[in-house]
Protein backbone atom coordinates (compact mmCIF):
# COMPACT_ATOMS: atom_id res chain seq x y z
CA UNK A 1 0.00 0.00 0.00
CA UNK A 2 1.48 3.34 -0.97
CA UNK A 3 2.24 5.71 1.83
CA UNK A 4 0.67 8.95 0.85
CA UNK A 5 0.64 12.43 2.16
CA UNK A 6 -3.07 12.26 2.68
CA UNK A 7 -3.17 9.10 4.77
CA UNK A 8 -5.13 9.24 7.94
CA UNK A 9 -2.51 10.67 10.19
CA UNK A 10 -2.38 8.50 13.22
CA UNK A 11 -0.26 10.88 15.19
CA UNK A 12 -2.56 13.83 14.80
CA UNK A 13 -0.99 17.20 15.16
CA UNK A 14 0.95 16.75 18.25
CA UNK A 15 4.18 18.23 19.21
CA UNK A 16 5.97 15.31 20.72
CA UNK A 17 9.38 16.80 21.14
CA UNK A 18 9.15 17.24 24.86
CA UNK A 19 6.43 14.76 25.72
CA UNK A 20 6.84 11.97 28.21
CA UNK A 21 4.90 9.95 30.71
CA UNK A 22 1.22 10.15 31.44
CA UNK A 23 0.52 13.51 29.84
CA UNK A 24 1.93 12.37 26.55
CA UNK A 25 -0.07 9.17 26.78
CA UNK A 26 -3.25 11.14 27.59
CA UNK A 27 -2.74 13.28 24.51
CA UNK A 28 -2.31 10.22 22.33
CA UNK A 29 -5.39 8.68 23.86
CA UNK A 30 -7.43 11.73 22.86
CA UNK A 31 -6.04 11.62 19.33
CA UNK A 32 -6.70 7.90 19.07
CA UNK A 33 -10.30 8.19 20.19
CA UNK A 34 -10.95 10.91 17.60
CA UNK A 35 -9.44 8.86 14.80
CA UNK A 36 -11.25 5.75 16.08
CA UNK A 37 -14.58 7.60 15.93
CA UNK A 38 -14.06 8.28 12.25
CA UNK A 39 -13.09 4.67 11.56
CA UNK A 40 -16.03 3.42 13.59
CA UNK A 41 -18.55 5.48 11.63
CA UNK A 42 -17.25 4.01 8.39
CA UNK A 43 -16.99 0.50 9.82
CA UNK A 44 -20.71 0.45 10.66
CA UNK A 45 -21.51 0.67 6.96
CA UNK A 46 -19.36 -2.38 6.19
CA UNK A 47 -20.78 -4.44 9.00
CA UNK A 48 -24.43 -3.55 8.31
CA UNK A 49 -24.20 -4.43 4.65
CA UNK A 50 -22.33 -7.63 5.44
CA UNK A 51 -24.96 -8.57 8.00
CA UNK A 52 -27.87 -8.12 5.66
CA UNK A 53 -26.61 -9.19 2.22
CA UNK A 54 -23.43 -11.09 3.12
CA UNK A 55 -21.15 -9.07 0.89
CA UNK A 56 -18.22 -6.77 1.54
CA UNK A 57 -19.08 -3.42 0.01
CA UNK A 58 -15.63 -2.46 -1.23
CA UNK A 59 -16.98 0.81 -2.57
CA UNK A 60 -17.86 1.97 0.94
CA UNK A 61 -14.51 3.69 1.49
CA UNK A 62 -15.16 5.71 -1.64
CA UNK A 63 -18.62 6.60 -0.39
CA UNK A 64 -16.81 8.07 2.62
CA UNK A 65 -14.58 10.04 0.24
CA UNK A 66 -17.64 11.30 -1.66
CA UNK A 67 -19.10 12.39 1.67
CA UNK A 68 -15.96 14.41 2.37
CA UNK A 69 -16.13 16.10 -1.03
CA UNK A 70 -19.79 16.93 -0.72
CA UNK A 71 -19.13 18.42 2.71
CA UNK A 72 -16.34 20.54 1.21
CA UNK A 73 -18.49 21.72 -1.69
CA UNK A 74 -21.43 22.49 0.59
CA UNK A 75 -19.10 24.38 2.91
CA UNK A 76 -17.65 26.48 0.08
CA UNK A 77 -21.11 27.28 -1.27
CA UNK A 78 -22.38 28.36 2.14
CA UNK A 79 -19.36 30.55 2.73
CA UNK A 80 -19.62 32.12 -0.73
CA UNK A 81 -23.24 33.12 -0.14
CA UNK A 82 -22.06 34.94 2.94
CA UNK A 83 -23.07 32.65 5.76
CA UNK A 84 -20.75 33.14 8.71
CA UNK A 85 -22.38 31.49 11.72
CA UNK A 86 -20.23 28.41 12.22
CA UNK A 87 -22.76 26.16 14.02
CA UNK A 88 -25.37 26.83 11.33
CA UNK A 89 -22.84 26.12 8.58
CA UNK A 90 -21.78 22.88 10.24
CA UNK A 91 -25.34 21.67 10.69
CA UNK A 92 -26.32 22.44 7.09
CA UNK A 93 -23.13 20.87 5.73
CA UNK A 94 -23.75 17.77 7.83
CA UNK A 95 -27.32 17.33 6.64
CA UNK A 96 -26.56 18.08 2.99
CA UNK A 97 -23.60 15.75 2.97
CA UNK A 98 -25.57 12.95 4.62
CA UNK A 99 -28.49 13.34 2.22
CA UNK A 100 -26.50 13.47 -1.02
CA UNK A 101 -24.06 10.74 0.00
CA UNK A 102 -27.00 8.56 1.00
CA UNK A 103 -28.29 9.02 -2.52
CA UNK A 104 -24.93 7.80 -3.86
CA UNK A 105 -25.13 4.77 -1.57
CA UNK A 106 -28.63 4.00 -2.73
CA UNK A 107 -27.67 4.37 -6.39
CA UNK A 108 -24.62 2.13 -6.11
CA UNK A 109 -26.72 -0.63 -4.56
CA UNK A 110 -29.45 -0.20 -7.12
CA UNK A 111 -27.28 -0.32 -10.23
CA UNK A 112 -24.31 -2.45 -9.19
CA UNK A 113 -25.46 -4.92 -6.51
CA UNK A 114 -29.17 -5.56 -6.74
CA UNK A 115 -29.10 -6.98 -10.28
CA UNK A 116 -26.47 -9.46 -9.06
CA UNK A 117 -28.16 -10.47 -5.84
CA UNK A 118 -29.17 -13.89 -7.08
CA UNK A 119 -25.98 -14.44 -8.99
CA UNK A 120 -23.00 -16.35 -7.61
CA UNK A 121 -21.68 -15.15 -4.28
CA UNK A 122 -18.58 -13.35 -5.52
CA UNK A 123 -20.35 -11.38 -8.24
CA UNK A 124 -21.57 -8.45 -6.11
CA UNK A 125 -18.18 -8.22 -4.42
CA UNK A 126 -16.38 -7.96 -7.75
CA UNK A 127 -18.94 -5.40 -8.78
CA UNK A 128 -18.18 -3.50 -5.55
CA UNK A 129 -14.49 -3.37 -6.40
CA UNK A 130 -15.49 -1.97 -9.78
CA UNK A 131 -17.72 0.64 -8.16
CA UNK A 132 -14.82 1.63 -5.93
CA UNK A 133 -12.75 2.49 -9.02
CA UNK A 134 -15.69 4.20 -10.66
CA UNK A 135 -16.29 6.47 -7.69
CA UNK A 136 -12.67 7.42 -7.10
CA UNK A 137 -12.05 8.08 -10.79
CA UNK A 138 -15.29 9.99 -11.03
CA UNK A 139 -14.19 12.37 -8.33
CA UNK A 140 -10.67 12.55 -9.75
CA UNK A 141 -12.09 13.65 -13.09
CA UNK A 142 -14.71 16.02 -11.76
CA UNK A 143 -12.75 17.47 -8.83
CA UNK A 144 -9.18 17.05 -9.94
CA UNK A 145 -6.41 14.90 -8.59
CA UNK A 146 -4.91 17.44 -6.26
CA UNK A 147 -5.41 17.43 -2.52
CA UNK A 148 -8.09 19.96 -1.58
CA UNK A 149 -7.19 21.87 1.55
CA UNK A 150 -9.60 23.98 3.53
CA UNK A 151 -8.66 26.58 6.10
CA UNK A 152 -9.47 25.48 9.64
CA UNK A 153 -13.19 25.93 10.15
CA UNK A 154 -13.22 25.28 13.83
CA UNK A 155 -10.39 26.68 15.85
CA UNK A 156 -9.46 26.81 19.48
CA UNK A 157 -9.63 24.28 22.23
CA UNK A 158 -8.84 23.62 25.81
CA UNK A 159 -5.59 23.00 27.57
CA UNK A 160 -6.19 20.13 29.91
CA UNK A 161 -2.75 19.88 31.39
CA UNK A 162 0.50 21.69 31.16
CA UNK A 163 3.66 20.29 32.62
CA UNK A 164 7.31 20.87 31.79
CA UNK A 165 6.32 22.63 28.65
CA UNK A 166 4.24 19.70 27.35
CA UNK A 167 0.65 20.59 26.74
CA UNK A 168 -2.24 18.13 26.64
CA UNK A 169 -4.77 19.76 24.41
CA UNK A 170 -8.32 18.92 23.54
CA UNK A 171 -9.23 20.93 20.49
CA UNK A 172 -12.75 22.03 19.65
CA UNK A 173 -12.60 19.99 16.45
CA UNK A 174 -11.85 16.88 18.47
CA UNK A 175 -14.76 17.61 20.79
CA UNK A 176 -17.08 18.09 17.83
CA UNK A 177 -15.94 14.87 16.13
CA UNK A 178 -16.47 12.78 19.26
CA UNK A 179 -19.78 14.38 20.24
CA UNK A 180 -21.17 14.10 16.71
CA UNK A 181 -20.16 10.46 16.63
CA UNK A 182 -21.78 9.73 19.97
CA UNK A 183 -25.01 11.49 19.04
CA UNK A 184 -25.25 9.73 15.68
CA UNK A 185 -24.51 6.37 17.22
CA UNK A 186 -27.23 6.93 19.79
CA UNK A 187 -29.74 7.77 17.06
CA UNK A 188 -28.57 4.84 14.97
CA UNK A 189 -28.76 2.39 17.88
CA UNK A 190 -32.25 3.59 18.69
CA UNK A 191 -33.23 3.17 15.04
CA UNK A 192 -31.97 -0.40 14.85
CA UNK A 193 -33.29 -1.49 18.24
CA UNK A 194 -36.59 0.32 18.49
CA UNK A 195 -38.09 1.28 15.14
CA UNK A 196 -39.98 -0.74 12.61
CA UNK A 197 -37.26 -0.15 10.01
CA UNK A 198 -34.63 -1.44 12.42
CA UNK A 199 -36.69 -4.49 13.21
CA UNK A 200 -37.18 -5.15 9.51
CA UNK A 201 -33.45 -4.79 8.94
CA UNK A 202 -32.68 -7.31 11.67
CA UNK A 203 -35.35 -9.65 10.34
CA UNK A 204 -33.81 -9.51 6.85
CA UNK A 205 -30.41 -10.14 8.36
CA UNK A 206 -31.63 -13.26 10.14
CA UNK A 207 -33.99 -14.76 7.54
CA UNK A 208 -34.88 -12.87 4.37
CA UNK A 209 -37.45 -15.36 3.19
CA UNK A 210 -39.32 -15.31 6.49
CA UNK A 211 -39.15 -11.53 6.59
CA UNK A 212 -40.81 -11.41 3.16
CA UNK A 213 -43.45 -13.87 4.37
CA UNK A 214 -44.22 -11.36 7.11
CA UNK A 215 -44.74 -8.49 4.69
CA UNK A 216 -41.27 -6.97 4.82
CA UNK A 217 -40.22 -5.44 1.51
CA UNK A 218 -36.74 -6.97 1.44
CA UNK A 219 -35.44 -4.91 -1.49
CA UNK A 220 -36.49 -1.68 0.15
CA UNK A 221 -35.00 -2.71 3.48
CA UNK A 222 -31.67 -3.54 1.84
CA UNK A 223 -31.73 -0.18 0.06
CA UNK A 224 -32.31 1.55 3.37
CA UNK A 225 -29.34 -0.29 4.84
CA UNK A 226 -27.10 1.16 2.15
CA UNK A 227 -28.65 4.59 2.62
CA UNK A 228 -27.99 4.59 6.37
CA UNK A 229 -24.48 3.21 5.96
CA UNK A 230 -23.67 5.90 3.39
CA UNK A 231 -25.11 8.64 5.59
CA UNK A 232 -22.86 7.57 8.46
CA UNK A 233 -19.89 7.41 6.09
CA UNK A 234 -20.74 10.96 5.01
CA UNK A 235 -20.54 12.07 8.62
CA UNK A 236 -17.14 10.40 8.83
CA UNK A 237 -16.12 12.20 5.61
CA UNK A 238 -17.14 15.53 7.01
CA UNK A 239 -15.38 14.87 10.32
CA UNK A 240 -12.25 13.95 8.39
CA UNK A 241 -12.48 17.20 6.49
CA UNK A 242 -12.86 19.20 9.71
CA UNK A 243 -10.12 17.33 11.51
CA UNK A 244 -7.45 17.09 8.83
CA UNK A 245 -8.53 20.07 6.77
CA UNK A 246 -8.28 18.31 3.42
CA UNK A 247 -9.84 15.78 1.12
CA UNK A 248 -8.65 14.05 -2.03
CA UNK A 249 -10.06 11.51 -4.44
CA UNK A 250 -7.88 8.70 -3.14
CA UNK A 251 -8.56 8.98 0.57
CA UNK A 252 -11.37 6.43 0.49
CA UNK A 253 -9.01 3.60 -0.26
CA UNK A 254 -6.86 3.57 2.86
CA UNK A 255 -9.63 4.75 5.16
CA UNK A 256 -11.91 2.09 3.69
CA UNK A 257 -9.43 -0.69 4.27
CA UNK A 258 -8.81 0.49 7.83
CA UNK A 259 -12.51 0.68 8.58
CA UNK A 260 -13.06 -2.72 7.04
CA UNK A 261 -10.29 -4.04 9.26
CA UNK A 262 -12.05 -2.40 12.20
CA UNK A 263 -15.29 -4.14 11.28
CA UNK A 264 -13.57 -7.53 11.04
CA UNK A 265 -11.68 -6.91 14.27
CA UNK A 266 -14.88 -6.05 16.10
CA UNK A 267 -16.69 -9.02 14.57
CA UNK A 268 -18.24 -8.45 11.16
CA UNK A 269 -22.01 -8.27 11.40
CA UNK A 270 -21.91 -6.81 14.90
CA UNK A 271 -22.78 -3.12 15.20
CA UNK A 272 -21.21 -2.48 18.61
CA UNK A 273 -18.28 -4.53 17.31
CA UNK A 274 -17.76 -2.12 14.42
CA UNK A 275 -17.53 0.84 16.78
CA UNK A 276 -15.26 -1.01 19.18
CA UNK A 277 -13.08 -2.19 16.29
CA UNK A 278 -12.90 1.38 14.99
CA UNK A 279 -11.76 2.68 18.36
CA UNK A 280 -9.26 -0.15 18.67
CA UNK A 281 -7.71 0.49 15.26
CA UNK A 282 -7.64 4.25 15.92
CA UNK A 283 -5.88 3.76 19.25
CA UNK A 284 -3.44 1.14 17.98
CA UNK A 285 -2.40 3.34 15.09
CA UNK A 286 -2.06 6.44 17.18
CA UNK A 287 -0.19 4.83 20.05
CA UNK A 288 2.08 2.92 17.70
CA UNK A 289 2.92 6.12 15.86
CA UNK A 290 3.53 7.89 19.15
CA UNK A 291 5.83 5.35 20.71
CA UNK A 292 7.36 3.49 17.78
CA UNK A 293 7.26 4.69 14.22
CA UNK A 294 4.73 6.42 12.05
CA UNK A 295 5.85 4.44 9.00
CA UNK A 296 4.80 1.13 10.51
CA UNK A 297 1.44 2.15 11.97
CA UNK A 298 -0.46 0.23 9.28
CA UNK A 299 1.66 -2.83 9.91
CA UNK A 300 0.82 -2.56 13.61
CA UNK A 301 -2.90 -2.26 12.97
CA UNK A 302 -3.03 -5.20 10.58
CA UNK A 303 -0.76 -7.34 12.78
CA UNK A 304 -3.11 -6.88 15.72
CA UNK A 305 -5.95 -7.89 13.42
CA UNK A 306 -4.14 -11.09 12.49
CA UNK A 307 -3.36 -11.93 16.10
CA UNK A 308 -6.95 -11.32 17.20
CA UNK A 309 -8.34 -13.40 14.37
CA UNK A 310 -6.07 -16.32 15.24
CA UNK A 311 -7.50 -16.49 18.74
CA UNK A 312 -10.99 -15.10 18.09
CA UNK A 313 -11.83 -16.02 14.49
CA UNK A 314 -15.15 -14.17 14.65
CA UNK A 315 -13.63 -10.97 16.02
CA UNK A 316 -14.09 -9.33 19.39
CA UNK A 317 -17.91 -9.26 19.47
CA UNK A 318 -18.77 -11.52 16.54
CA UNK A 319 -20.95 -14.52 17.03
CA UNK A 320 -19.97 -18.02 16.04
CA UNK A 321 -21.00 -19.08 12.54
CA UNK A 322 -22.80 -22.18 13.72
CA UNK A 323 -26.26 -21.52 15.04
CA UNK A 324 -28.68 -23.88 16.64
CA UNK A 325 -31.62 -24.23 14.32
Amino acid at each position, binding site marked *: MPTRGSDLRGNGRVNFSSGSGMDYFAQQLINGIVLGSIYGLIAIGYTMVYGIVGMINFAHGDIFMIGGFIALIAFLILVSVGLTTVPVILLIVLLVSMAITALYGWTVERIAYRPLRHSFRLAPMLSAIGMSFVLSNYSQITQGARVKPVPPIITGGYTLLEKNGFVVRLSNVQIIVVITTIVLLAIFTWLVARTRLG*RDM*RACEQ*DQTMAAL*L*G*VDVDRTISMTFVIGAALAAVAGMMYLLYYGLVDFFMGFVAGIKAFTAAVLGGIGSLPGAMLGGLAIGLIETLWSAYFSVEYKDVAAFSILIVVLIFLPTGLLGRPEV*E*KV
Partner: protein
Amino acid sequence: MTAQPLLTIRALRAAYGKIEALKGVDLDINRGEIVALIGANGAGKSTLMMTVFGKPRARSGQIIFDSRDITDVPTHEIARLRIAQSPEGRRIFPRMSVAENLQMGADATDSSEADRATALERVFTLFPRLKERMTQRGGTLSGGEQQMLAIGRALMSRPRLLMLDEPSLGLAPLIARQIFDAIRTLNRQDGLTVLIVEQNANHALRLAHRGYVMVNGLITLKGTGSELLQRPEIRAAYLEGGRRA
Protein backbone atom coordinates in the same frame (compact mmCIF):
# COMPACT_ATOMS: atom_id res chain seq x y z
CA MET B 1 -73.02 -24.62 3.67
CA THR B 2 -72.47 -22.81 0.41
CA ALA B 3 -68.82 -23.00 -0.47
CA GLN B 4 -67.21 -19.61 -0.82
CA PRO B 5 -63.74 -20.05 -2.28
CA LEU B 6 -60.94 -18.23 -0.47
CA LEU B 7 -57.92 -19.80 -2.13
CA THR B 8 -58.04 -21.48 -5.51
CA ILE B 9 -55.01 -23.17 -7.00
CA ARG B 10 -55.11 -24.35 -10.61
CA ALA B 11 -52.59 -26.44 -12.55
CA LEU B 12 -49.77 -25.10 -10.40
CA ARG B 13 -46.24 -26.02 -11.37
CA ALA B 14 -43.11 -25.03 -9.50
CA ALA B 15 -39.51 -26.16 -9.49
CA TYR B 16 -36.22 -25.74 -7.71
CA GLY B 17 -33.79 -25.41 -10.58
CA LYS B 18 -34.39 -28.48 -12.70
CA ILE B 19 -36.18 -30.45 -10.02
CA GLU B 20 -39.89 -30.17 -10.49
CA ALA B 21 -41.61 -30.12 -7.11
CA LEU B 22 -45.19 -29.34 -8.15
CA LYS B 23 -46.44 -30.90 -11.36
CA GLY B 24 -49.87 -29.39 -11.85
CA VAL B 25 -51.65 -29.06 -8.53
CA ASP B 26 -55.34 -28.16 -8.12
CA LEU B 27 -56.55 -27.26 -4.68
CA ASP B 28 -59.45 -25.29 -3.22
CA ILE B 29 -59.95 -23.83 0.20
CA ASN B 30 -63.29 -22.37 1.14
CA ARG B 31 -63.92 -19.74 3.77
CA GLY B 32 -64.15 -21.13 7.27
CA GLU B 33 -62.70 -24.51 6.33
CA ILE B 34 -59.86 -26.49 7.76
CA VAL B 35 -58.14 -28.28 4.90
CA ALA B 36 -55.47 -30.89 5.53
CA LEU B 37 -52.74 -31.72 3.08
CA ILE B 38 -51.04 -35.02 3.73
CA GLY B 39 -48.33 -36.94 1.99
CA ALA B 40 -44.91 -38.43 2.44
CA ASN B 41 -41.68 -36.52 2.84
CA GLY B 42 -40.71 -34.77 -0.37
CA ALA B 43 -44.18 -34.94 -1.89
CA GLY B 44 -44.21 -31.17 -2.36
CA LYS B 45 -46.50 -30.12 0.49
CA SER B 46 -44.21 -27.45 1.91
CA THR B 47 -43.35 -26.26 -1.59
CA LEU B 48 -47.05 -25.79 -2.28
CA MET B 49 -47.40 -23.55 0.77
CA MET B 50 -44.33 -21.55 -0.13
CA THR B 51 -45.39 -21.21 -3.78
CA VAL B 52 -48.58 -19.48 -2.62
CA PHE B 53 -46.17 -16.78 -1.37
CA GLY B 54 -44.10 -16.84 -4.55
CA LYS B 55 -41.09 -18.57 -2.94
CA PRO B 56 -40.41 -20.22 -5.38
CA ARG B 57 -42.43 -18.51 -8.09
CA ALA B 58 -44.93 -20.65 -9.96
CA ARG B 59 -43.65 -21.78 -13.38
CA SER B 60 -47.19 -21.97 -14.63
CA GLY B 61 -50.73 -22.20 -13.30
CA GLN B 62 -52.75 -19.83 -11.18
CA ILE B 63 -53.17 -18.91 -7.54
CA ILE B 64 -56.29 -16.93 -6.73
CA PHE B 65 -56.89 -15.51 -3.27
CA ASP B 66 -60.20 -13.85 -2.52
CA SER B 67 -60.89 -13.47 -6.27
CA ARG B 68 -57.53 -11.80 -6.87
CA ASP B 69 -54.84 -13.43 -8.98
CA ILE B 70 -51.75 -13.43 -6.76
CA THR B 71 -49.58 -15.71 -8.89
CA ASP B 72 -47.13 -12.92 -9.70
CA VAL B 73 -47.64 -10.59 -6.75
CA PRO B 74 -44.46 -9.84 -4.74
CA THR B 75 -44.12 -11.97 -1.61
CA HIS B 76 -44.40 -9.12 0.89
CA GLU B 77 -47.60 -7.87 -0.73
CA ILE B 78 -49.13 -11.33 -0.51
CA ALA B 79 -48.42 -11.27 3.22
CA ARG B 80 -50.25 -7.94 3.48
CA LEU B 81 -53.39 -9.60 2.08
CA ARG B 82 -53.43 -11.35 5.46
CA ILE B 83 -52.24 -14.77 4.47
CA ALA B 84 -50.00 -16.03 7.24
CA GLN B 85 -47.74 -19.01 7.38
CA SER B 86 -46.04 -20.94 10.11
CA PRO B 87 -43.47 -22.45 7.77
CA GLU B 88 -41.42 -25.61 7.67
CA GLY B 89 -38.60 -25.38 10.19
CA ARG B 90 -40.54 -22.69 12.11
CA ARG B 91 -38.14 -19.97 11.01
CA ILE B 92 -38.52 -17.80 14.04
CA PHE B 93 -35.98 -15.00 14.30
CA PRO B 94 -33.38 -16.45 16.69
CA ARG B 95 -31.78 -13.17 17.74
CA MET B 96 -35.00 -11.32 18.41
CA SER B 97 -36.98 -11.51 21.60
CA VAL B 98 -40.27 -13.40 21.68
CA ALA B 99 -42.02 -10.03 21.90
CA GLU B 100 -40.24 -8.80 18.76
CA ASN B 101 -41.02 -11.99 16.89
CA LEU B 102 -44.70 -11.47 17.67
CA GLN B 103 -44.38 -7.82 16.71
CA MET B 104 -43.00 -8.89 13.30
CA GLY B 105 -46.20 -10.87 12.82
CA ALA B 106 -48.33 -7.87 13.74
CA ASP B 107 -46.33 -5.64 11.38
CA ALA B 108 -47.30 -7.85 8.46
CA THR B 109 -50.65 -6.10 8.22
CA ASP B 110 -51.66 -2.59 9.08
CA SER B 111 -53.49 -2.97 12.31
CA SER B 112 -54.44 -0.59 15.07
CA GLU B 113 -53.03 -0.77 18.57
CA ALA B 114 -56.32 -2.25 19.74
CA ASP B 115 -56.15 -4.98 17.08
CA ARG B 116 -52.63 -5.82 18.19
CA ALA B 117 -53.61 -6.00 21.82
CA THR B 118 -56.54 -8.28 20.99
CA ALA B 119 -54.38 -10.53 18.83
CA LEU B 120 -51.71 -10.69 21.52
CA GLU B 121 -54.30 -11.55 24.17
CA ARG B 122 -55.53 -14.38 21.99
CA VAL B 123 -52.03 -15.73 21.45
CA PHE B 124 -51.42 -15.65 25.21
CA THR B 125 -54.68 -17.47 25.81
CA LEU B 126 -53.68 -20.21 23.39
CA PHE B 127 -50.04 -20.40 24.47
CA PRO B 128 -49.66 -19.04 28.01
CA ARG B 129 -46.05 -20.21 27.94
CA LEU B 130 -45.14 -17.44 25.51
CA LYS B 131 -46.20 -14.81 28.01
CA GLU B 132 -43.51 -15.99 30.41
CA ARG B 133 -40.91 -15.91 27.67
CA MET B 134 -41.55 -12.47 26.18
CA THR B 135 -38.09 -11.03 26.79
CA GLN B 136 -36.20 -14.22 25.95
CA ARG B 137 -34.47 -14.54 22.60
CA GLY B 138 -36.25 -16.75 20.09
CA GLY B 139 -33.20 -18.94 19.54
CA THR B 140 -33.10 -19.95 23.20
CA LEU B 141 -36.62 -21.40 23.25
CA SER B 142 -37.27 -25.13 23.27
CA GLY B 143 -38.60 -26.75 20.09
CA GLY B 144 -42.16 -26.78 21.36
CA GLU B 145 -41.99 -23.16 22.43
CA GLN B 146 -40.55 -22.20 19.05
CA GLN B 147 -43.49 -23.95 17.39
CA MET B 148 -45.91 -22.02 19.58
CA LEU B 149 -44.09 -18.82 18.73
CA ALA B 150 -44.22 -19.54 14.99
CA ILE B 151 -47.97 -20.11 15.17
CA GLY B 152 -48.45 -17.15 17.50
CA ARG B 153 -46.50 -14.91 15.14
CA ALA B 154 -48.71 -16.01 12.24
CA LEU B 155 -51.81 -15.27 14.29
CA MET B 156 -50.59 -11.77 15.16
CA SER B 157 -51.36 -10.64 11.63
CA ARG B 158 -55.04 -11.59 12.17
CA PRO B 159 -54.90 -13.79 9.09
CA ARG B 160 -57.79 -14.62 6.81
CA LEU B 161 -55.92 -17.75 5.78
CA LEU B 162 -53.56 -19.49 8.15
CA MET B 163 -51.14 -22.02 6.69
CA LEU B 164 -49.45 -24.35 9.14
CA ASP B 165 -46.60 -26.57 8.05
CA GLU B 166 -46.28 -29.54 10.38
CA PRO B 167 -47.33 -27.78 13.57
CA SER B 168 -46.89 -30.97 15.60
CA LEU B 169 -43.40 -31.80 14.37
CA GLY B 170 -41.02 -32.61 17.18
CA LEU B 171 -43.56 -31.87 19.87
CA ALA B 172 -44.53 -33.95 22.87
CA PRO B 173 -47.94 -35.56 22.21
CA LEU B 174 -49.58 -33.46 24.89
CA ILE B 175 -48.36 -30.21 23.35
CA ALA B 176 -49.27 -31.40 19.86
CA ARG B 177 -52.78 -32.01 21.16
CA GLN B 178 -52.89 -28.51 22.63
CA ILE B 179 -51.94 -27.07 19.28
CA PHE B 180 -54.58 -29.06 17.41
CA ASP B 181 -57.15 -27.97 19.99
CA ALA B 182 -56.07 -24.39 19.52
CA ILE B 183 -56.54 -24.66 15.75
CA ARG B 184 -60.02 -26.12 16.20
CA THR B 185 -60.93 -23.36 18.62
CA LEU B 186 -59.74 -20.64 16.25
CA ASN B 187 -61.72 -22.19 13.44
CA ARG B 188 -64.95 -22.58 15.41
CA GLN B 189 -64.86 -19.31 17.32
CA ASP B 190 -63.34 -16.94 14.79
CA GLY B 191 -64.18 -18.75 11.57
CA LEU B 192 -60.48 -18.84 10.73
CA THR B 193 -59.65 -20.64 7.49
CA VAL B 194 -56.75 -23.06 7.87
CA LEU B 195 -54.55 -25.08 5.56
CA ILE B 196 -52.58 -27.62 7.53
CA VAL B 197 -49.77 -29.83 6.29
CA GLU B 198 -49.11 -32.83 8.46
CA GLN B 199 -47.19 -36.04 8.62
CA ASN B 200 -49.49 -37.05 11.41
CA ALA B 201 -52.33 -37.83 8.98
CA ASN B 202 -54.60 -39.26 11.63
CA HIS B 203 -54.67 -36.06 13.66
CA ALA B 204 -54.88 -33.81 10.67
CA LEU B 205 -57.71 -35.64 8.92
CA ARG B 206 -59.76 -35.77 12.10
CA LEU B 207 -59.34 -32.09 12.56
CA ALA B 208 -59.98 -31.12 8.94
CA HIS B 209 -63.23 -30.69 7.06
CA ARG B 210 -61.55 -31.81 3.88
CA GLY B 211 -58.26 -33.30 2.94
CA TYR B 212 -55.92 -33.74 0.00
CA VAL B 213 -53.30 -36.40 -0.48
CA MET B 214 -50.18 -35.43 -2.32
CA VAL B 215 -47.75 -37.81 -3.96
CA ASN B 216 -44.74 -36.73 -5.95
CA GLY B 217 -45.93 -33.24 -6.76
CA LEU B 218 -49.47 -34.22 -7.63
CA ILE B 219 -52.78 -34.43 -5.78
CA THR B 220 -53.83 -38.05 -5.95
CA LEU B 221 -56.85 -38.10 -3.67
CA LYS B 222 -59.25 -35.68 -2.11
CA GLY B 223 -62.34 -35.88 0.05
CA THR B 224 -63.75 -35.06 3.42
CA GLY B 225 -61.56 -35.82 6.39
CA SER B 226 -63.63 -38.80 7.48
CA GLU B 227 -63.84 -40.18 3.93
CA LEU B 228 -60.09 -40.12 3.59
CA LEU B 229 -59.63 -41.70 6.99
CA GLN B 230 -61.69 -44.69 5.78
CA ARG B 231 -59.76 -45.23 2.55
CA PRO B 232 -57.70 -48.42 2.73
CA GLU B 233 -54.80 -46.93 0.75
CA ILE B 234 -54.60 -44.01 3.15
CA ARG B 235 -54.72 -46.28 6.14
CA ALA B 236 -51.98 -48.41 4.66
CA ALA B 237 -49.70 -45.60 3.56
CA TYR B 238 -50.12 -42.97 6.24
CA LEU B 239 -51.86 -44.43 9.25
CA GLU B 240 -51.02 -48.02 10.00
CA GLY B 241 -48.07 -49.23 8.00
CA GLY B 242 -46.66 -45.79 7.57
CA ARG B 243 -47.00 -44.71 11.15
CA ARG B 244 -43.71 -43.83 12.62
CA ALA B 245 -42.99 -45.67 15.82
